[in-house]
């Protein structure tokens, strides 16, 4: 338990202590002691539900202090955990069937997150909250993948009906009259965020994951770590379960190939996103990280600072936190190089992003960004007025994709 600049709210602290599969005796004592003190258990339950860590909370609370928890709270927690466990198993079983169907048709597929993550990182499909099947497929195989899912009884969902649909490709399929939902992906996208998943390295390094009686091909742990860190950063680590994923993967895979991880992360422009994921797992959940690995980011003041501010909704003063709606500012701050950062800054200025107009207080470069925004405004006006649209399009593409 490391000292913190911004403290957790009281119930959140218990949640953070419990959101892990193994813990030292000292922490067990802390949990028991805290359970004896006045605690708003309904707040704790709501937080656990929001942060997707109910199964871990139930597992640890029932083992350590069930006699200290109000009976109705424990019953509610148990009911939700048990229902989640059966749903997870159903989803894992369905995932096995879907992957088998892809295999039969010779279409490559990698389940990311969900059941395979639960097994790979937590060694237990019931301990990780999930509700759908995210499948990585090659972009070129979309037509075949769609046909396979339709043959399995799935229907494609119209993106127009999805209110919280993020940017990027949307290929969601739902099995009629069930809770089974498949999301086909080859890119991870959000507002001003794009990370390609359809990478030769991912396909080449696939590893078998055992789901009950089925074996599916999952990401290698090194690649999974990168995907988890990029995904968590995409959402500004809004939910504790994303930090848990990284921490549990580190616990369950002590021999990761760090050279490969950092080399790939640098090549793919997400090195600092990996660093923030590792730093959070270490600071928040005491994940095992060698000094050598920590040394790779220990001089990065932004990484250290951000790992104190997320997940924001667990902080005693959430105003100190980095919230998901501020994620664009986080992407800006965590670009791997000065050049990439300011190229991204230009895109934000050009698009008149709200982040440029009212940058969060924690963003060091906020004044510079506002200044650049004002500086380029006359140029923007001139370009809009004088430069023909096709040339403007080419310029935009140059700014966005690095010239």
């Amino acid at each position, binding site marked *: 338990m490391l000292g913190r600049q911004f403290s957790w709210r009281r119930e959140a602290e218990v949640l953070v202590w419990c959101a892990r599969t193994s813990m030292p005796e000292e922490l067990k004592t802390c949990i028991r002691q805290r359970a004896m003190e006045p605690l708003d258990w309904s707040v704790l339950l709501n937080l656990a539900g929001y942060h997707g860590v109910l199964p871990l909370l139930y597992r640890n609370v029932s083992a350590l202090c069930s006699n200290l928890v109000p009976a109705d709270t424990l019953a509610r927690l148990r009911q939700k955990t048990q*229902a989640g466990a*059966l749903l997870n198993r159903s989803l894992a079983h369905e995932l096995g069937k879907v992957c088998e169907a892809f295999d039969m048709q010779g279409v490559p597929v990698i389940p990311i997150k969900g059941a395979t993550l639960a097994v790979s990182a937590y060694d237990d499909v019931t301990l990780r909250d999930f509700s759908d099947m995210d499948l990585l497929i090659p972009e070129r195989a979309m037509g075949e993948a769609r046909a396979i899912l339709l043959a399995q009884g799935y229907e494609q969902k119209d993106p127009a009906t999805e209110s919280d649909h993020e940017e990027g490709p949307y290929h969601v399929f*739902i099995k009629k*009259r*069930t*809770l089974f*939902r498949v999301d086909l992906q080859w890119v991870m996208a959000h507002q001003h965020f794009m990370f390609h998943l359809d990478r030769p390295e991912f396909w080449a390094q696939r590893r078998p994951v055992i789901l*009950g009686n089925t074996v599916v091909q999952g990401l290698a742990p090194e690649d999974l770590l990168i995907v988890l860190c990029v995904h968590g950063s995409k959402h500004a680590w809004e939910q504790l379960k994303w930090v848990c994923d990284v921490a549990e993967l580190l616990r369950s895979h002590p021999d990761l190939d760090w050279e490969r991880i950092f080399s790939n992360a640098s090549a793919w422009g997400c090195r600092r996103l990996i660093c923030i994921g590792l730093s959070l797992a270490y600071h928040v959940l005491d994940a095992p990280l060698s000094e050598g690995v920590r040394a790779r980011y220990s001089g990065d003041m932004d990484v250290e600072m951000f790992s104190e501010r997320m997940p924001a909704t667990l902080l005693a003063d959430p105003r100190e936190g980095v919230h998901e709606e501020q994620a664009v500012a986080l992407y800006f701050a965590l670009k791997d190089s000065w050049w990439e950062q300011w190229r991204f800054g230009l895109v934000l200025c050009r698009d008149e992003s709200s982040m440029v107009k009212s940058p969060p207080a924690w963003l060091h470069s906020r004044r510079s960004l506002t200044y650049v925004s004002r500086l380029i405004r006359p140029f923007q006006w001139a370009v809009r007025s004088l430069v023909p649209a096709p040339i403007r399009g080419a310029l935009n593409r140059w700014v966005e994709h690095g010239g």
Partner: protein
Amino acid sequence: MVERVMDESCFSLHGTSVRYTTGSPTLADPVNELLRHFRQDSLGEAPALTIQFYAVQNRADVPLTISASACRLASGTGEAVGDQRATGLPYEVTQDQGLLIADFHRVGVLAIDGTQGYAKGYLINPEQLPATLVEYLFHLTLIELLRRRGLYTIHATALEHHGRAVLIPGNSGRGKTTSFISLLRSGYRYLSDDHPLLHDSGAHIEVLPFPIKINVTDATVQFFPELRKASERVLHPGVYKRYFNAEDLYPTAVGERCQPAIVLFPHVVDAPQSRLELLPKSRALEALLPQALLVYDQAVARREFQVLAKLVQQVDCYRLHFGQDILDLPKLITPLLEKGR
């Protein structure tokens, strides 16, 4: 008068979504308890199955009229649509166009549209009915709907051990729950105390968990020291039997869906040691069929029969002559499961 439907509960039974609505807490609580392992916050779009239960004050308030062309399928007392002798309800089952109507006279009426996945229940003064009866009527409705979606049940207890299931069918008083608890306490994982679900996956039959509370008689309690010592917080008082949740007493979890390996037909014998007698498949099927709930649709009945026949082909079936060595039952059963792995 039928009261307004208000409360809604959502469940996902191994992928099949179920929406249950009722306006009466007396009708909501037993169902939520029965399906607590399957409860979900929401279901998204149209559920596979919709069940509505209404509280009515009189039989005349049930808004169902049976047409002249309706066909009476069965009537009697007791084993209406299942084998729960304890209910002892007079009943009458009628097929009226697409509806299966189970009339329990002074208790209420169930109207089940299996094809549409829709059912309504009208219970007369439910606040005067025991919760177990509400639970029973709901379960009956649910099973009738599920069997049309390829999920069947038999009256049996079921446990999982290293990915293989043991099924113990039988009526009350045959040692079914006692043998179940004996295996459970030795580390077997529980699938169901009364109604495991069966599914034909094509290659084989699978047993799926349907975890519910475990009902025990006073006689059963006496066999197990931990039950004898259990407080009322764990071993709850009930109407005919007491009940407990497996996880309150044993370090166990709900088992995985798996292939059944053994079916045991227990009967209690006055002998110091239990023993097993291998049953021919035909006799096993004969013994198993009465444990399936009654089916009124021919096509469904045929499919259900095929599932049971396939199950018997797939497993070893034994008559368990259940002696006084109750706590040692795992020593007899586990080697059989290990041998087949």
